[in-house]
């Protein structure tokens, strides 16, 4: 741990160059005034720069390490996307400034809507959701609005495969639905019989990721679509894995009624240590009226935001203003850099990388969770053998990988594959890096064979040794108080 910024604070120190001149506050009754200052540090500008620069160096990131976090699509984030978004014309514009003062921005947002429609095969797109989960909320809320609009109000269930991301069931609940889980078969496809048994007049819809989170393409998607549609339900597409199929298959063509896209994955906007993302939603024709606002429309050669007035059946607003515009600009720039051909290649090389790594890891003696299947843009290694025979768990491998300079893959997700590593290399990594990762995995296994306690102690070379999660949750220490020292 670095010294906390608070511990560097001294009374009455200020970063003068950042201060407005001091004026007296008039007119605010004493009863409404603050009497003690908040705990913000009193430090110089250089102290701040130094502290946070040094903290930054403690992170692994795409700009510094291979980061094959499955389901997260950690690909290169082009720097120009950032500089474009930070231009004063974009970054300095107030959300309620007149549309006439934002035609350049609105044109870009309109273009992005159109582009995403084409890429997904959907009929309409709203850019407003701030991340995947909010996109899911919008999507399921639209499913509900659709059924409600038809007075089909008995539909109370959303079907979710057991492999689904946690946001799927959580979202269904937020939309007032019950969740019905269906199992995934050993081959990685959904259990069609279970699905058939699950659907009925209570079915509002199903939420699917395809390729699914187990890293395979759901081959029976057409049949699934038919079963659900026949039962009167709608199909929701969780677009977290769109990177795998960009330019190859389109959710709209697979029969999905509504989708979200994680632009912070497929469209390479940075993850920023946890966000912001952008989770635009796309819909088929029948859900068009329900799209969340605002959306951009083009009238002649002018662009404007559509609001409640224009779209009375909309499920409404998901954020106070327009969603994560700055992220959407970055995604748009990325899309224009790629263009048609570039976009089609994304899926190809992401898939090539994943299948290559899967093949090489298998050769190195690791067990694939779905060895009979093609990997998509990601794949799963299960370390259940290593856990049992060597006492080396997925967690141990993950932590030891850090010592070798690789970020760990996603661990313990999806939940039904024991001791799993979900590995997603993305298309922007070179063969050398993949080879380096495979070699590290092999070396770690060899280490475990020698002495598995070595792995239990990992990592050794990072700013912290392995951290005690249990204690973190048991002895909650969520804010610094002068004097709260951990020992």
């Amino acid at each position, binding site marked *: 741990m670095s010294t906390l910024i608070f511990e560097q604070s001294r009374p009455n120190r200020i970063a003068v160059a950042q201060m407005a001149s001091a004026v007296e506050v008039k007119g605010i009754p004493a*009863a409404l005034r603050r009497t003690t200052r908040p705990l913000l540090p009193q430090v110089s500008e250089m102290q701040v720069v130094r502290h946070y620069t040094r903290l930054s160096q403690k992170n*692994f990131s795409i700009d510094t390490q291979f980061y094959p976090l499955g389901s997260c699509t950690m690909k290169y984030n082009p720097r120009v996307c*950032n500089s474009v978004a930070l231009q004063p014309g974009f970054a300095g514009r107030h959300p309620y400034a007149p549309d006439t003062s934002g035609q350049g921005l609105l044109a870009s947002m309109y273009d992005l809507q159109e582009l995403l429609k084409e890429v997904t095969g959907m009929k309409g797109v709203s850019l407003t959701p701030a991340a995947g989960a909010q996109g899911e909320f919008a999507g399921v809320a639209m499913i509900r609005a659709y059924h409600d609009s038809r007075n089909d109000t008995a539909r109370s269930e959303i079907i979710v495969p057991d492999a689904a991301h946690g946001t799927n069931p959580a979202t269904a609940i937020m939309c007032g639905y019950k969740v019905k889980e269906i199992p995934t078969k050993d081959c990685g496809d959904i259990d069609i019989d279970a699905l058939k048994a699950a659907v009925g007049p209570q079915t509002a819809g199903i939420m699917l990721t395809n390729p699914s989170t187990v890293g395979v393409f759901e081959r029976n998607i057409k049949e699934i679509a038919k079963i659900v549609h026949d039962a009167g339900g709608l199909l929701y597409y969780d677009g977290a894995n769109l990177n795998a199929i960009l330019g*190859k298959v389109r959710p709209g063509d697979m029969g999905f009624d509504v989708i979200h896209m994680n632009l912070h994955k497929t469209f390479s906007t940075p993850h920023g240590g946890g966000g912001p993302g952008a989770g635009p939603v796309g819909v088929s024709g029948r859900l068009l009226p329900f799209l969340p606002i605002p959306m951009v429309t083009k009238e002649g050669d002018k662009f404007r935001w559509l609001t409640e007035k224009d779209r009375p059946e909309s499920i409404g607003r998901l954020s106070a203003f327009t969603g994560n515009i700055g*992220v959407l600009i970055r995604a748009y720039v990325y899309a224009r850099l790629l263009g048609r051909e570039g976009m089609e290649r994304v899926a190809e090389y992401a898939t090539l990388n994943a299948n290559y790594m899967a093949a090489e890891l298998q050769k190195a003696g690791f067990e694939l969770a779905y060895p009979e299947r093609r990997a998509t843009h990601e794949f799963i290694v299960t370390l259940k053998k290593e856990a049992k025979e060597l006492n080396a768990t997925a967690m141990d491998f993950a932590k030891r990988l850090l010592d070798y300079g690789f970020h760990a893959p996603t661990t313990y997700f999806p939940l039904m594959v024991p001791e799993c590593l979900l590995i997603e290399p993305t298309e922007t990594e070179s063969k050398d890096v993949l080879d380096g990762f495979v070699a590290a995995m092999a070396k770690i296994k060899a280490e475990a064979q020698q002495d598995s306690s070595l792995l239990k102690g990992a990592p050794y070379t990072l700013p912290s040794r392995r951290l005690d999660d249990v204690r973190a949750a048991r002895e909650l220490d969520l804010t610094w108080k002068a004097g709260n020292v951990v020992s």
Partner: protein
Amino acid sequence: MPFIPHTEQDVTEMLDAIGVDSIEALFDEIPAELRVKGVLNIPDGMNEMAVARLMRERAAGDATGLNFIGAGAYEHHIPQAVWDIATRGEFYSAYTPYQAEASQGTLQLLYEYQTMTASLNGLDVSNASLYDGASALSEAVLMAVRAHRKSKSKRVLMPSTVHPAYRAVVRAVVKNQGIEIVELPYCAEAGTTLISELKQYEGQDITALVIPQPNFFGVLEDVDGLTDWAAANNAIAIAVVNPMTLSLLKPPGQWGQNGVDISCGEGQPLGIPLSSGGPYYGFITCKQAHVRQLPGRIIGRTVDLDGKPGFALTLQAREQHIRRSKATSNICTNQGLMVTASTIFMSLMGAEGLERAAAQSISNTQILADKLCAINGVERVFAGVNFHEVVLRLPKPVAGVLEALAERGIYGGYNMGTQYPTLSDCISVCATETKTAADLDAYSDALKAVLA
């Protein structure tokens, strides 16, 4: 191929290793009839030079005027260091800190953020962000419903002085969970929520009361009275506040006898560019008792194998990736980078910096309002105490006036009529510390000309 590093030789070797002939073969599990036919109708790729120029030209015409709009998004000075550091690759291109040992930078920063934000709100704990102020309020309402087990009504009182868009978002988010949002009228004279209006709800099962400060009119509410009313009536008190103003205003944790239970709001004023509306970030803080109902990520301090302090995500059992359908919220990706910037911002400004920026904004708005009210037919609408925003009545139709001002390079304010029919001849105006005396004059001159 943009951003794809593969050479032909790499591809050959890799295909050999996999044991297939072509990349195409890797897609053989996708039913043929589903494959994209022909090519996508998407423009050709451009190089960085061309894209940058296109976007430079597009940005050049945007937002060229002086901004006097507030209404939930505030133009404050942002030190250059803030985004220089926040966009360092190590912050910018990292993921959520799942591997704690490889994310101590982000984690420590977030712990510092939680400390600052909790303290600013006068409450015990903070999460590590939500999407924006409106989504934070929505989550606060859901949280109150979860936290208040005894209340069965799921009725939440919502002053109409809360930002209209926030109310719209809350409606959109909670409507499918059987929660009833009851809107409270405001006092047309004072521009505040009167406690007398709450009388009718006394003795009823009210789950929560929302209390904005300052409210959407820029007016200060009787937060002590409202908070005490909530306590007296067994309702959870939810504050929705502008964090910049908390440098001067009593923090929600100290409102009334016992403070509010939950305080949330929009983090944008603390170092986040206006950006046409986003990305911003929502913050949410609460009393320790409610921590397990708090949605979103939370960072805790712990120790490593050597006993040295370090940081990790904690209380993950509340979250969707563990708890799934029983999670406190579906939120996963949050607004991490914004919080990164905001933490740097708060560190640079310190309490004094926030105070000064807020005080200057109050003063500038006051001066501007006086100048504008000196123009014939322009007048203040509400008698309440203003912070850094004020509602003014205009003698000419608002839309036309704002348009004419925009043509003169002045974004003059927010058209209140779009959300409050009774205020259809009103705008709300805000002049932060970024405005000079000359700027204020420019506005009043322009308005004079437009109204003449």
